[in-house]
């Protein structure tokens, strides 16, 4: 490998650099303008997105028993769906159907009733 500035000249390094930086800037300046336009174009009235605290403090939540019941039903539902996943682990686990008694039925059903996408 032979050092030297002539390489840069031969390779038209500065030309590439200038063109490159120019294009990159033009592109992103353009982009940021577009974004500003966008935000002014689209309707301003924002429906505030529900911000869910990333680590919910148990004490703060204080769920009513109704909520706990909802959790129960949710978990049952999730289990029944996820039990496909459970089947899909290791062959050993596939043979032995352990897990929740509640969902033993749900398993095949959430399957056969899994939406027909055809």
């Amino acid at each position, binding site marked *: *490998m*032979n*050092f*030297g*500035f002539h*390489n*840069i000249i031969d*390779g*038209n*390094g*500065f030309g*590439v*650099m200038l*063109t*490159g*930086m120019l*294009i*990159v*800037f*033009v*592109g*992103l*300046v*353009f*982009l*940021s*303008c*577009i*974004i*500003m336009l*966008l*935000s002014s174009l*689209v*309707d301003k009235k*924002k429906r*505030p*997105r529900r911000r869910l605290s990333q680590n919910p403090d148990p004490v703060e939540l204080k769920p009513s028993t109704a909520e706990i019941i909802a959790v129960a039903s949710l978990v049952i539902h999730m289990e029944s769906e996820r039990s496909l996943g459970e089947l899909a682990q290791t062959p050993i686990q596939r043979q032995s159907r352990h897990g929740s008694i509640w969902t033993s039925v749900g398993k095949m059903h959430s399957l056969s009733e899994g939406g027909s996408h055809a």
Partner: protein
Amino acid sequence: MELLIKFLLSTGFVGMSWQNLVMILFGVLFIYLAIKKNFEPLLLLPIGFGLIVGNIPLPAEIAGSEEGNFFYNIYQGVSQGIYPPLIFLGVGAMTDFSSMLSNPKLVLLGAAAQFGIFLTLIGALFIGFTPAQAGAIGIIGGADGPTAIFLASKLAPELLGSIAIAAYSYMSLVPVIQPPIMRLLTTKEERRIRMQVSRQVSKKEKIIFPIVAFLVCTMIAPGSMVLMGCLFFGNLLKEAVVTERLANTARNAMIDILTILLGFSVGAHTLAENFLTWQSIGIFVMGAAAFACATAAGVLFAKFMNLFLKQKINPLVGAAGVSAVPNAARVCNKVGLEADPGNYLLMHAMAPNVAGVVGSAIAAGVLLTILGS
């Protein structure tokens, strides 16, 4: 008996050169860094193991012709430029552009940081690389794995291994490289600057953005069409709630499978004769330079912008323009907190951070157009 001799002659010990050994040690090193130091483990661990696998000396009759060889086959996805864009698609399905949408002027910082790419290109030319190779080396400064691998596979396949490794290594070294430069180029007051909270972004904007952004970028740099197309397509899949299941698979099963194939095959194709060269040393030196320049460029440009803005920018976020998502943004946040505990820059830093991804993809497009044979 002669069978046994024949076999023994075929074992790995025979024909094990010191180069092979060094390469295997490199492989072990990268695996160590991935696991212990959490250096981009999803890529460096597969590459590291690939290095080990690829550098076991094989007798000709086993190695056989390239065709039909397993590693040659899975490497096609790299040499044909299939894996990187699809991985970029998954990245798009992971990326949230809302911080960028909420304060657009920070996008320029993502442009400034690409200066590192081109300065490195000049450096690479200086130390004797061909223009095409120099372009591929420069893109290391883009701090974006798929972009780097994609461009390298087009401009300088022979350097792909070194470039990929350099790119990912420095991306994980960001917390080491950037802070000193950031501190050097900013005063404590500047680091203390607090930025106004960014506005809410509507769903509609998030959906329209990828489409418009793709059009703008490809119009200006058609060479970046494939990368941009995949990145913004993935993002659209994510934002358009109706295709959530596709976005979900794209950012999970699909990107994982492709990452395994990419990392493993890139590693297995990084052979001693290509890697243990002066060129590689040059590449690593240039890579470090690239990251340093990019960081400096970002910070300085932020200070430059402050000359005109009344709503001052905290120059630290300029450093996030190098992309290396999300490490660089975290570094900004960290350095910011040092100067003023309670000044959280993370969300602001995400804007130049993702803009940097777009910026380096544009740069890659330019280099591909100008330097591509």
